[in-house]
């Protein structure tokens, strides 16, 4: 803890802080500004003293603050297991503060590629999952047959017509009834 502060320190004693102060990226802010998400009860002086004591960051005279109301969301809340789609709720508002820094700060560079995070795989998996959900969903009868399925059916028909394979009833449920007396 620094003993000499260039400003008048607050006298609120905070021994065990149980809240989050999040540094937020804002592409439009110049390097001598930083934006934070703070608890809703935070004041500008609280943030100034907190940054000074916990992070040794000196903050210029100007701090801007606003409270951002959340959009309403479907469901009763985020913590329940089964979402209730007919109920709506509004998540809590968040407080954002933009401080002027005494020393400029530039965020570290973005990662060049996201192979460590499996971004490509996650994207492919989510696309496949979405496709599967569509094929199993309510509108599955209205969906057009996929091109892949069409080409395979064409190959099959061609092979049948050329006599390369013999048609047999399939072993699925439809075919079971035909052959059940032969067993």
């Amino acid at each position, binding site marked *: 803890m620094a003993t000499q502060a260039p400003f008048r320190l607050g006298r609120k004693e905070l021994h065990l*802080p149980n809240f989050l102060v999040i*540094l937020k*990226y804002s592409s439009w802010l110049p390097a001598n500004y930083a934006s934070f998400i703070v608890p809703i009860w935070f004041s500008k002086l609280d943030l100034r003293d907190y940054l000074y004591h916990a992070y040794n960051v000196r903050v210029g005279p100007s701090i801007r603050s606003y409270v951002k109301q959340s959009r309403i969301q479907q469901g009763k809340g985020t913590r329940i297991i089964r979402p209730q789609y007919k109920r709506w709720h509004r998540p809590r508002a968040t407080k954002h503060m933009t401080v002027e820094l005494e020393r*400029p*700060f530039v965020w570290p560079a*973005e990662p060049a590629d996201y192979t*460590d995070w*499996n971004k490509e795989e996650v994207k492919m998996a989510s696309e496949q999952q979405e496709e599967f959900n569509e094929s199993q969903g309510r509108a599955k009868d209205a969906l057009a047959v996929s091109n892949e399925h069409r080409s395979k059916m064409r190959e099959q028909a061609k092979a049948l017509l050329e006599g390369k394979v013999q048609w047999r009833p399939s072993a699925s449920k439809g075919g079971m009834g035909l052959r059940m007396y032969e067993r």
Partner: protein
Amino acid sequence: MHCTSASLLRSALHITPCRTAAVVPPSFLLPAFALTQTSPFSSTAPASARKDHNRNRGVSALHRTGIGKKQHLSVKLEDLPKPVLDPKRRSDIEVDPDHGLYAFFPDGNEGDRIMTPEEYAAHGRGWRIQELRAKDWEDLWRLWWVCSKERNKIATLEMERKRLAGNGQMYGDVEAGTRDKQVRVTMRNIKVVLTERWYAWENARQAAMEDPEVDLSADPGKGEQAYLPGKGEGLLDNSSANEGITEPGQGLPPPVNALPMSEARA
């Protein structure tokens, strides 16, 4: 048909039975009886108010009226510095290597912006209650602040990761969650230990208040004895019915300080 409030009121006032009201209407109705309007309806200032010989009257930078023909500025348009619109051509900003805001990032210095799932998962378990019981208040307090700043860091990195990738478009959710959970386990156990100590302190204080051998009002700084052995022996002999049982702590020498330092600080 022309109908005003004054005409309506006039007829209404004439048929009132009270004679005095017909002669003198109440004061709040007086504006309705005014025959001529003294102020004009329009609130715009008259044209004469604008003739103040100000050349810059009506010139606005916001509304793009431009400068007038007779206006001369100290700077020409060609001399104005031009903004660098391309971010790549801008000069680099020097950041101090020990800037405090780097504590919100994985390495604590100018390294990566976000953590990989492997880096997230590189952690052990949280502190347990048995381990924390051996620590004094200063240690617990420091550990709490370390945990609090670690939670700030995780929340910052998660928000940035979701901003870069889109929510649910990259791995790392689960790893960040388990890391954060271990930190919260530590913080919860610190609170458990501190609560235990508070109850131990309170129980000891109440026991000392009932004990005649302990003088809680004594000031050790002035050389006064807080523990006075044998002061209330007569009382103890009368009250203790089971003399055959020996307490395990009776054979030990009396403690120098009735309360250990760590609890005194907590």
